[in-house]
């Protein structure tokens, strides 16, 4: 039986990737929050990291690593993680590596339809949807995340919806939850959340 001991939830935002870096970082606070969360996630180097992401592959690309894998590679590297990590898809139930304690790095964000300048323009349901997801992340409310409406999530361009639902499906209990970043600087809802799920003792 695998046990998930720690979870970090970060945005799947391409703006974090070095391939898209300008000379000024447009998201310094978000980046700092992501780095802090990943440092915490990998405090125990013996804990393998499972990466969850729903990011689609680039157009025409079979070989390019997923955006989730690229973000994980960047942030785990910056966080000094030298141990193992692997990526799991979230289209079906997540298969956890058997018999291991794990840390999970989940790339999940909220709606991209939170304003006129947002990538997906305005959808009036976006704020309510994100408020509910944000509350579930802050309280570790697994039932709420397991019940996420994926169709609504897709309509709201909430790329993280299937990730959060899959994550909640494989975590047993959240002992402590914190959200260190909660903002929508470009009309896309970002959270950086940390969950301690099962006592490491």
């Amino acid at each position: 039986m695998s046990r998930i001991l720690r979870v970090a939830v970060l945005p799947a935002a391409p703006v974090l990737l070095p391939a898209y870096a300008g000379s000024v970082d447009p998201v310094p606070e978000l980046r700092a929050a992501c780095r802090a969360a990943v440092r915490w996630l990998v405090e125990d180097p013996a804990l393998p990291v499972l990466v969850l992401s729903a990011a689609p592959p680039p157009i025409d690309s079979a070989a390019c690593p997923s955006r989730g894998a690229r973000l994980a590679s960047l942030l785990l590297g910056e966080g000094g993680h030298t141990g193992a990590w692997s990526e799991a898809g979230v289209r079906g139930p997540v298969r956890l590596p058997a018999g291991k304690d794990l840390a999970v790095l989940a790339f999940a964000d909220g709606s991209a339809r939170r304003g006129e300048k947002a990538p997906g323009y305005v959808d009036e349901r976006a704020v309510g949807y994100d408020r509910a997801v944000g509350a579930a992340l802050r309280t570790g409310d697994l039932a709420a995340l397991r019940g996420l409406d994926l169709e609504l999530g897709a309509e709201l361009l909430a790329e993280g919806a299937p990730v959060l639902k899959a994550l909640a499906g494989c975590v047993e209990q959240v002992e402590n939850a914190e959200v260190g970043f909660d903002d929508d600087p470009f009309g896309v809802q970002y959270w950086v959340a940390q969950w301690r799920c099962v006592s490491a003792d």
Partner: protein
Amino acid sequence: MTLVLGHRTFPDDATLMMAIVNRTPDSFYDRGATWAEDLAFERVDRVVAEGAEIVDVGGVKAAPGSAVDETEESRRVVAFVDRVRSRHPDLVVSVDTWRAAVAREACAAGADVLNDAWGGHDPALVDVAARFGAALVCTHTGGTPPRTRPHRIEYDDVMASVVRDTTAYAERAVAAGVDPRSVLVDPAHDFGKNTFHSLEVTRRLGELVATGWPVLVSLSNKDFVGETLDRPVGERLTGTLAATAVCALAGARVYRVHEVTETRQAVDMAASIAGRRPPARAVRGLA
């Protein structure tokens, strides 16, 4: 290749200015400056005086915003096309639409070009162009639907996608009966692209020119210029002209622009550097 744009024919070394005329209250650059029909008409007069060969009349802003249905789009565009056609018989009139129904009415009113910024989203548009003998601009959007912004789109090779999709669209148009001399391709900066994609497309524009299809570029004051230079709308002319010069050097034929005079100078300068255009008047060291 000789370019046939409706009732006008242009030789293969001609570069053309396509001036943007918005019949919209909410387009990003002019923010409704030509929403009133008479003001739009005055802009047509002005850009013609500045030397524009083409006007591109649009009734729907490209970005998301208030819904504009076919009826409303036609109301904004069709009578205006008719009025411009009457006043400026030599001018090439283009209509910026992705909808076949609107295109049909616009062509009946005298439009010469259908500028489909959304990459053939309406499959019947090619049939309208064929039926009316109109030219067609085939753009690349990476599959993004009309009036959406790119969100996290990535490509294995953006230029390969541009070349493949625009030439496929061009060939589909020719197969539908559009005169091959009346088909242009447009990589569509910012459409389905982040700033890095648009910069790469600019850098590699020669690959699209090499397909042999005449290339139209629409660079004017766009976000990729703004993001590259960190300039808001209204302060992007210099960057626009730099990108324009790069495209001109690569061999782009048609330039969809807000500022006609400045763009014409940038294009002519680049064309002369490329050896495709003689200087206007050269006496230095020659007297």
